[in-house]
């Protein structure tokens, strides 16, 4: 008999419907695990115990009345980047360490409307800038598979908490890989949908043209449930796509026979560690068995992705983070002697080193004399990269690659070398630049640490990604294991 936390979302919903257990019992079981396990992991910044119990009781009433909502009683966690009315929304920063949001993001509201129970807000790299969760003002998060290692980032808290069974699933955001890389490092399924699929309203901005909300879950099927609840057009976000959201849950069962999977030769010509290559080739065997066709594709401008990203993302963030000035909300330095002193010291003391680096690089790339050479040039290269995908998707349905260059690494190992850290996202950044959906699923283990593979598709084909991932998971066990805690 599995424990409650080990049930899939589908099984949990069935159990709640059959009164095998109540929503309150389910919530209490998670709250108990959080109390026991999280002090070591540090995956939550805020746990909202009482509120969760209230919501769970409301959920039980709806079950008793026979009119449950789609995700009624499912305990989830929100990345601390989603504004939640009346709850601390820190974005992992000292700057917002006391910021009680006066309003809720569209994503938070949608989950409320779906009946899910929010357990708390998860730890993250400061303002979503980082790939190890070590830039958080609230301390690093530990990888549940090995507490000497990082969970990845920036959604490290969401990944660790789901991986450790401290939530049934968690929301996350992905600007350059912040859902998929931690998914890979923690042995989870993580999907970043098409840019515009999930509303950005109330999601604290890092780089507006790259940021996209998504979810971290144990399985692709779980992801289908959560993604369905959070997707859809939002008139409050001008860049939200006004298109119908497919029924991901039902479509997940359609078979994948005949799908063409492309392998970009540029990715595989890199010097990948042997265990990474092996995990991918093993996975390909499974896909072939499932009737898909594997072929090589070219993405000739792929090597520009990381450089382009490190112009565009900092440029946009340099403006997005200007509002943190100590005037309307957030941290303010002590005894400012004049206005400039207020600005300069508030931002010196309120931001951590990685955020400062990126704001400075972005400011530089946009400044007079450098705009054309950096920012404008990067925008042109971005079109080349997007064009590569357009071409590749003429001959394949999906593109497969490793999610991260390797398994997780030790805490502190890369934190003193920013560029080394940036290379964590080498496989994930291209999808953000082109606005494409992508999913990471577990595909192996090395030294007891998970490995992940990434699938990318054309715009709005999340359903195809979920379906392919689901069929892989029906034929593999990597996603089934739990870390011993």
């Amino acid at each position, binding site marked *: 008999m599995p424990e409650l936390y080990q049930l899939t979302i589908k099984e949990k919903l069935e159990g709640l419907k059959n009164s095998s257990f109540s929503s309150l019992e389910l919530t209490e079981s998670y709250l108990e695990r959080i109390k026991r396990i999280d002090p070591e992991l540090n995956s939550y910044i805020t746990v909202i115990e009482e509120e969760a119990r209230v919501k769970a009781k409301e959920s039980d009433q709806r079950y008793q009345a026979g009119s449950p909502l789609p995700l009624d009683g499912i305990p989830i966690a929100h990345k601390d980047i989603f504004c939640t009315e009346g709850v601390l929304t820190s974005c992992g920063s000292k700057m917002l360490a006391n*910021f*009680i949001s*006066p309003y809720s993001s569209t994503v938070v509201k949608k989950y409320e409307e779906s009946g899910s129970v929010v357990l708390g807000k998860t730890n993250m790299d400061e303002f979503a800038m980082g790939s190890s969760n070590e830039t958080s003002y609230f301390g690093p998060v530990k990888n549940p598979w090995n507490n000497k290692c990082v969970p990845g980032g920036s959604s490290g808290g969401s990944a660790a908490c789901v991986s450790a069974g401290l939530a049934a699933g968690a929301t996350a955001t992905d600007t350059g890989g912040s859902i998929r890389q931690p998914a890979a490092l923690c042995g989870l399924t993580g999907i970043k949908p098409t*840019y*515009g699929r999930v509303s950005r309203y109330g999601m604290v901005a890092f780089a507006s*043209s*790259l940021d996209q909300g998504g979810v971290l879950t144990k399985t692709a099927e779980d992801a289908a449930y959560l993604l369905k609840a959070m997707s859809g057009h939002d008139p409050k976000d*001008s*860049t939200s*796509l006004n298109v119908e959201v497919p029924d991901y849950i039902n479509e997940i069962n359609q078979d994948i026979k005949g799908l063409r999977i492309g392998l970009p030769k540029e990715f595989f010509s890199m010097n990948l560690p042997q265990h990474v290559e092996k995990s991918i080739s093993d996975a390909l065997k499974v896909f072939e068995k499932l009737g898909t066709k594997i072929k090589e594709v070219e993405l000739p401008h792929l*090597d*520009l992705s990381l*450089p*382009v990203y*490190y*112009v565009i993302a900092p440029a946009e963030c340099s403006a997005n983070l*200007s509002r943190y*000035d*100590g*005037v*309307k*909300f*957030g*941290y*303010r330095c002590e005894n*400012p*002697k*004049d*206005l*400039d*002193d*207020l*600005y*300069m010291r508030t*931002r*010196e003391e309120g931001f951590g080193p990685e955020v*400062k*680096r990126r*704001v*400075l*690089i972005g*400011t*530089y790339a946009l*400044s007079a004399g450098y705009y054309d*050479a*950096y920012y404008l*040039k*990067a*925008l*042109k*290269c*971005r*079109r*080349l990269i*997007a064009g590569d995908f357009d071409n590749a998707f003429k001959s394949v349905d999906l593109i497969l690659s490793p999610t991260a260059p390797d398994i997780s690494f030790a805490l502190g190992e890369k934190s003193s070398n*920013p*560029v080394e850290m*940036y290379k964590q996202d080498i496989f994930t950044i291209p999808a953000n630049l*082109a*606005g494409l959906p992508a999913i990471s699923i577990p595909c192996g283990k090395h030294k007891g640490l998970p490995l992940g593979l990434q699938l990318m598709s054309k715009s709005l084909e999340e359903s195809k990604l979920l379906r392919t991932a689901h069929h892989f998971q029906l034929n593999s066990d990597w996603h089934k294991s739990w870390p011993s805690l």
Partner: protein
Amino acid sequence: MLIKDRDLEQIAYLARINIDKDYFPSLKQELESILDLVKKINSADTESVKPMFHPLDLFQPLRKDEVTEKDEREKLQKNAPLSQAGLFLVPKVIEDQG
């Protein structure tokens, strides 16, 4: 790519981030290493390529001219570091600064 102290001062001021002079050498080195990573874009042939500022190739949706928001000053100002009589307060601003 070498960043001069004066450049760093200028950028830091534009970004309104005070930087202790002691950090200048290490920070310059970090920023230079990022610029070194970035310089690869120079090798790309982008002649006649249109810049792509956004992943969506769509047009802006419009909103009707309607007042939908009510006064929420009390709630919105709760997070203010310093406020009085409904105003946010900052150190005296000298108006004649251009």
